[in-house]
């Protein structure tokens, strides 16, 4: 792992200022909601939505005398994520209290992990345009509770509090300051999201707030020491992250070029105006008075328990991509598209197994994904199953239908379902492979168009016109290759 400070941005990512070039340095704290039925320290449901305060236990509401009990499944999810980030799993970690007053924080403290997190250093490899890859260091991952939500629009002079989210498990994933452009930051969050979705540890649903980030941004002359950073709080879309970083970097460069200095502070991103603005300065920062939570014993993990989790880790995107390229002869681009979601890759493999991988990839990327996108459906909701798509490809490969006909079959199966072979049979879509019948059709076209026959001798590219006519007269069922071959012989070209 290289030293974070030493990494210099690709010169194309440098920002031109009035006084010379600058580069951006970015570190991120991503808050990922643990995919779990119940909360981190209570049995209450962690489900999204519901009426306000539907999913609140006595523990979540911090009733007197209530005690937290760690949810083992959430711990396993954090370990799983740690393994996915190629990170060190700490056999012993400690829960601390982060003390501050806020109406949506019922205990008056958040249970978090401060000095001894459950996961230590790791690495995420991000993929950039042009196939470039960059390793982003992970500093740590720790478990903590989410807070509730204040509702300010329910009453003329009161605020209401909804504790449904109070106590939901979050993983805070802290990167090293290894990113050097908004694109790298976006690629990093996308990659994290992809890995966690593969692992089933976070659904990555950004609209529901399952994944959000605090972004630390500073600027410096390329290769110089780190500058003073500002933290942009709680950005919840990848697009906004890019905008926030670019705006903030520009702002800091302007300040520095005008002879000013950057104040370390917390800033908010206003998505409507596309700008960041100051929230609180370092001096106003809270003193959280962290100390080990005496209600919870240190979390000691058995080596065998960790090993069991490691054993059950699914193949992750990078490995899967490499394997698909190797096993199916796919391009890096195609493989990358297919592994974006674990479900797509699995769909691909059930189609491609025992078939032409490239053909299968083309069908998925060009036909299936396009169709799913158009209708806003996820791969899991595809009306055409992997089995059905495989069958269509088999029919094409066997010459039973043409590729073009295959697309029609796909549309019919999409809309009506059923076995592709049966559809082809029932609708008489079978390709004409009987050369005698094709010859007859060719003969008829040649006889009917003596002028064109004369022209084609001079301009062989007119062959296409003859092919089209024959296809038309056979209702598209003639094998295009046979039509071509027979025409060439008959026309003597």
């Amino acid at each position, binding site marked *: 792992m290289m030293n974070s400070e030493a990494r210099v941005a690709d010169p194309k990512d440098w920002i031109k200022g009035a006084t010379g070039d600058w580069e951006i340095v970015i570190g991120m704290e991503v808050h990922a909601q643990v995919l779990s039925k119940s909360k981190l320290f209570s049995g209450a449901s962690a489900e999204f939505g519901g009426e306000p305060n539907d999913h609140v236990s006595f523990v979540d509401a911090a009733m007197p005398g209530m005690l937290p009990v760690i949810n083992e499944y959430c711990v396993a999810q954090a370990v799983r994520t740690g393994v996915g980030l190629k990170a060190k799993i700490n056999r012993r970690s400690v829960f601390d209290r982060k003390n501050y007053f806020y109406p949506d924080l019922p205990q008056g403290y958040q249970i978090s992990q401060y000095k001894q997190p459950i996961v230590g250093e790791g690495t995420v490899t991000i993929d950039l345009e042009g196939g470039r890859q960059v390793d982003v260091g992970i500093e740590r991952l720790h478990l903590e509770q989410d807070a509730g939500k204040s509702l300010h629009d329910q009453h003329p002079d009161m605020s209401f509090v909804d504790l449904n989210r109070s106590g939901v498990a979050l993983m805070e994933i802290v990167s090293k300051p290894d990113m050097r452009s908004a694109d790298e930051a976006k690629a990093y969050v996308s990659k994290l999201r992809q890995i966690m979705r593969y692992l089933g540890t976070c659904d990555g649903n950004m609209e529901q707030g399952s994944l959000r980030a605090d972004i630390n941004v500073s600027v410096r002359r390329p290769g110089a020491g780190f500058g003073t950073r500002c933290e942009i709080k709680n950005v919840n879309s990848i697009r906004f992250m890019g905008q926030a970083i670019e705006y903030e970097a520009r702002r800091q460069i302007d300040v520095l070029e005008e002879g000013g200095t950057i104040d370390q502070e917390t800033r908010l991103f206003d998505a409507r105006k596309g700008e960041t603005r100051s929230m609180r300065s370092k001096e106003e920062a809270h003193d959280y*008075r962290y100390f080990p939570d005496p209600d919870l014993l240190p979390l000691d993990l058995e080596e065998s328990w960790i090993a069991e989790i490691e054993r059950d880790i699914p193949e992750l995107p990078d490995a899967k991509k490499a394997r698909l390229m190797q096993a199916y002869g796919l391009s890096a681009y195609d493989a990358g598209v297919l592994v974006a979601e674990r479900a797509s890759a699995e769909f691909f493999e059930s189609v491609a197994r025992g078939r032409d991988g490239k053909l299968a990839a083309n069908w998925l990327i060009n036909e299936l994904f396009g169709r799913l996108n158009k209708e806003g459906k996820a791969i899991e909701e595809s009306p055409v199953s992997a089995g059905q798509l495989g069958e269509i490809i088999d029919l094409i490969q066997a010459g039973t239908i043409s590729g073009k006909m295959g697309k029609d079959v796909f549309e019919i199966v999409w809309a009506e379902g059923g076995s592709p072979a049966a559809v082809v049979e029932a609708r008489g879509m079978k390709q004409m492979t009987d050369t005698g019948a094709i010859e007859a059709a060719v003969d008829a076209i040649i006889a009917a168009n003596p002028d064109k026959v004369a022209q084609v001798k001079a301009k062989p590219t007119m062959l296409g016109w003859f092919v089209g006519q024959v296809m038309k007269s056979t209702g598209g069922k003639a094998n295009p290759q046979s039509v071509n071959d027979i025409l060439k012989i008959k026309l003597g070209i």
Partner: protein
Amino acid sequence: MSKLTSLTIAEARTSLKERKFSSLELTEAYLAAMEQARILNAYIVETPGRAREMAKASDARLAKGEGGALEGIPLGIKDLFATKGVHTQAASHILDGFEPPYESTVTANLWREGAVMLGKLNMDEFAMGSSNETSYYGNVINPWRRRNSNAALVPGGSSGGSAAAVAAHLCAGATATDTGGSIRQPAAFTGTVGIKPTYGRCSRWGIVAFASSLDQAGPIARDVRDCAIMLKAMASHDPKDTTSVDVPVPDYEAMLGRPIKGMRVGIPREYRVDNMPADIDALWVKGAQWLKEQGAEIVEISLPHTKYALPAYYIVAPAEASSNLARYDGVRYGLRVKGDDIVSMYENTRAAGFGREVQRRVLIGTYVLSAGYYDAYYVRAQKVRTLIKRDFDEAWNRVDVVLTPATPSAAFAPGEITDPVQMYLNDVFTVTVNMAGLPGISVPAGLDPAGLPLSLQLIGKPFGEVTLFQVGHAIEEAAGRFEAPVWW
């Protein structure tokens, strides 16, 4: 009827089984006694309706020859324990009107064994105090008075209501909690027996938290046997409290009366503090003598970090308390004093809701956890705690139990101690036990020249309650029992 209230739990248990009287009769006797003794202010809330209902249910079970270990026995419950649908306010104004929709594990265990609830007992606010003078509901008066004096005395604290109620026979036994001495010191001031079990022996679930790493529930009762009976019922492993320990609860009562011959009893030289009253020192010597006479071996030991225990305790306990009490913010339950905005609402509520001692400790706790002070105070106090534990670990190589005085003085008068630090010194013999997570029992051993009870403390190995009961019983046999003359 008044005679019924003079029975110990063990005696009443036998008579109830033999149907000599009913639980309802016993309960009525206590309710009448409580009514007569309101001047002691031991109860914050009396629950006669519930008591009678529970007693009747017990009688029905007893009639069928059924029933638990405490079937039909009327108990008082410290206000720190959550009791479903009943006033639970830790004797604080900030929990104004709070009635929890849940029952603490310890009280649920007692009800499962058939005990009857008489009401909620007064205490120092949030269990912070050594004299029961910090309760929002007023001082508790000790049933004991100095000879030839009508002046009121404090019952000790924080479980002052529990101790006073047991001493004045206003319940057969009481629940209590101990963070730095809150069971053992009031028991000592009232001539009753109180045991703080090993940390993790009783579930903390449903007990309003003061200092989570130190808080432990235990009983105060009239004698060692009653304490043994009660602790057996209170203790359990509770999955809802991850600091509770999964160790079987032994039959403590079965150990009583077993000879202590060959038992090694440690006398820690560091407990001989400056200005210790001569009668306390004499009592300590006498206690050792009794045990020696019964065949125990007396061993002088050293617990070198003892002198740091009290200062370290007054860092750790307030630090945890400052965080534990943050939830009382006026947002969800209890008192709310309005303000112009959320911050002023917090300030107004907490200023009105917390008494002076609680505010003092929240401030101390906030200070010692603050950036720049954390290492100097909190971290260092935790190190001291480790050293105190190590002192005891080493002592256990040489002795089976440690004998010390329970308190540095007998009960004092309300208002007599106004300097908080002077007040904190009341816990000088008891806090080390909490810091080390060990069990400790306070057993009455004699009277001072003014006729006030004094107690000795026995400290045991982790989960060594059995030994404490066994040796405590031996002291009790030698010392006899002490009862406050009725004046109320």
